[in-house]
């Protein structure tokens, strides 16, 4: 009798298992993306594919998917015209710079996988702040407030675009390889996450921050040092360092220590020469010729 139940048990178990095999999945009913040469965006998409996806393994997103944004903020998409402009200038002042200065394949390996453009900033009116960019998980960089750009205003471009590019890319780098602990100690007592926006540039410099936002927290401080060092003109950099040391303030000393830490970290961890990056960016910022940029003439050298 016992054997009968054993056979019954094994039999029903086999039937049960066999019935599990019947889950069949048909081919996906979704159509694979088709390269539509008639699409309104085809030419631009193709250009992005050729200049970003193929050489750098990055998807340059200019069309906005609300799901990809923070629902707590209201934002608008970027215009196609500004997307085109930024796609070109990002090559000029970011990707091509690293191609010139960094080890071969550096951005292909370490650059973001996604660049997302957003037309407006993320504005927090209650705190009086606006977010101009963000880096997420070492793979995505979002550049914001793009629609407000004026191509003839280099200061505006520097503040909102160029600096943000280097700022966010530096986040990507330290998200992959953490920055030295000693950096955090230099201004540990002065970080003010909730009140940095009430600090002036001069106050920030004299505390040893490259910008008020740098005083918000250590990781922002770290990338602000790098970004400001790269994009600030000689004159502006000297002004910052000079003012930082006035009135007996320690700001200059701290800033120079921070720059040195960043310089060493980039060299040792990434084989990147911060000063060479700065020289190349400064040269390009001085020589900005929009016709040449839009025709990619800088890449034809």
């Amino acid at each position, binding site marked *: 009798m016992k054997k009968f*139940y054993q056979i019954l048990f094994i039999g029903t178990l086999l039937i049960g298992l066999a019935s599990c095999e019947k889950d069949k999945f048909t081919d996906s009913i979704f159509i694979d993306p088709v390269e539509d040469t008639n699409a309104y965006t085809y030419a631009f998409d193709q250009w992005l594919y050729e200049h970003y996806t193929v050489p750098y393994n990055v998807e340059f997103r200019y069309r906005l998917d609300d799901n990809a944004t923070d629902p707590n903020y209201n934002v608008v998409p970027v215009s*196609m015209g500004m997307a085109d402009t930024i796609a070109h200038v990002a090559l000029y002042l970011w990707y091509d710079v690293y191609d010139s200065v960094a080890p071969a394949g550096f951005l292909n390996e370490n650059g973001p996988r996604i660049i997302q453009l957003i037309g407006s900033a993320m504005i927090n009116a209650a705190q009086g702040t606006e977010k101009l960019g963000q880096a997420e998980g070492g793979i995505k960089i979002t550049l914001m407030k793009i629609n407000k750009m004026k191509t003839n205003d280099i200061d505006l471009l520097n503040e909102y675009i160029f600096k943000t590019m280097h700022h966010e890319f530096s986040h990507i780098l330290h998200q992959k390889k953490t920055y030295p602990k000693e950096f955090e100690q230099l201004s540990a007592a002065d970080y003010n996450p909730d009140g940095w926006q009430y600090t002036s540039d001069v106050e920030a410099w004299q505390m040893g921050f490259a910008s008020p936002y740098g005083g918000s927290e250590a990781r922002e401080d770290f990338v602000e040092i790098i970004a400001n060092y790269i994009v600030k003109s000689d004159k502006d950099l000297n002004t910052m360092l000079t003012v930082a040391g006035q009135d007996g303030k320690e700001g200059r000393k701290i800033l120079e220590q921070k720059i040195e830490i960043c310089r060493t970290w980039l060299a040792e961890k990434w084989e990147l020469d911060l000063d060479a990056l700065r020289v190349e960016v400064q040269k390009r910022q001085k020589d900005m010729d929009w016709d040449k940029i839009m025709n990619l003439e800088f890449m034809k050298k």
Partner: protein
Amino acid sequence: MKAKYLFIAIALVSVLGACSREEENLFDKSAAERAQYAMDNANAVLVAPANGWEMLYFANPASRGYNVLVNFGKNGRLIATAKNGTTTGGVLRTDSSSTWMVKNDYGPILTMDTYNEVFHAWSDPRDDGEGLQGDYEFLILHADANFVKLKGKKYGAYYYLYPLEAGVKAADYYTEVDALQTKLCANGNLFHLNAGGKEHLLYDGNTGIFTLTETGEIPNPEVADIYPFAVRRNGIQLSFPFLDLKDVMYELKGDVLSAASSTLAPAAPVTYFAEYIELVGGAWTYNISDINETTKNAIADVNAALKKAYSSNKKAAVKSLSLSAGVEHAVLTLSYLGNSSSKTTDMTYLFSFKVQGNSLQLNYVGPSDENAEKVLVAFPSLLPMFQSLCGSFAITTESAINPTAGVKMTENSNSAKWFNLTGKQQ
């Protein structure tokens, strides 16, 4: 024996468990197939009209409606045309080009995913981070050749699209819309909602937003029951229905805006006359250049007295008479040129004001303050002029759908005593 029950239990669990994942098909297609079908259908519907769509866009559930003409190109290009004070500076903008697509996200979603100058100004966060809270991603709730209904994904306003007839040009479309807007809404016209015998009062105020109250009640702005609308070429489109009704489109038929289960129309003339000044805060202005002989002569007497008193000003004269609501009485505002040849002086006089059946009773009470009394003493001919305005009047309208365009008051006992008045929101 225990082992026997254990084997049977395990066997039953195995068999039943194997069956438990098989769900009965409630639909003839899978969820993914249905989602794809909905997207394909929406795509096909949106690109079909050769002349594009008339879209009634409500920036948010508390925003007035705007008319936008949109063309969804098969190639993913969106061309939008609009004329409004918010996104186009009041001029016709016809060349705003960007992109669109239908994507799947808990159902088909229409997204306008690159910046379009006609549309996205409603969505721009501006300096306060909020802006006008206009959506640019929409749930597609309904899509067929006759209309498309959308819901804003973030702020939840409802939008309607209707195919634009072939051959209709944008400029002509907006000319027609503007004309009907003026006809229906000029001067802060107000309507009654008639639905199954229940009547409510609506206020417009030229804001593109109706405020609903019980008849006779003045709305409280802090708890106002509001209904945004847009004027189309043939009537009024709501974003969502009044109360528990289902009507969202009221077509102008004769002098009534009609929908399936309700209508919108101004009150009868006498009632309207009173509501307009009492509830909306409007004013009725007498046409003093086209007025009955008695009042005309009375005004002439006043003018003569004014010219005599202000001899250095050849323009001294009565310039206007208008009737508005006061605390207890109606207020007649007398505007006249005295010392100044360009700046009028206003004095106010009180009138009793009462609706009786189809008649309006108007009687002079007296000056509203000391200054008005001094002027009355200085110019006694004012009194006969005021008295000539009194009586029991019947009222007829030039435009039943918007009586503010012009009403005629005629004394019941003397048809030679008549006044033409127009309404104006103050």
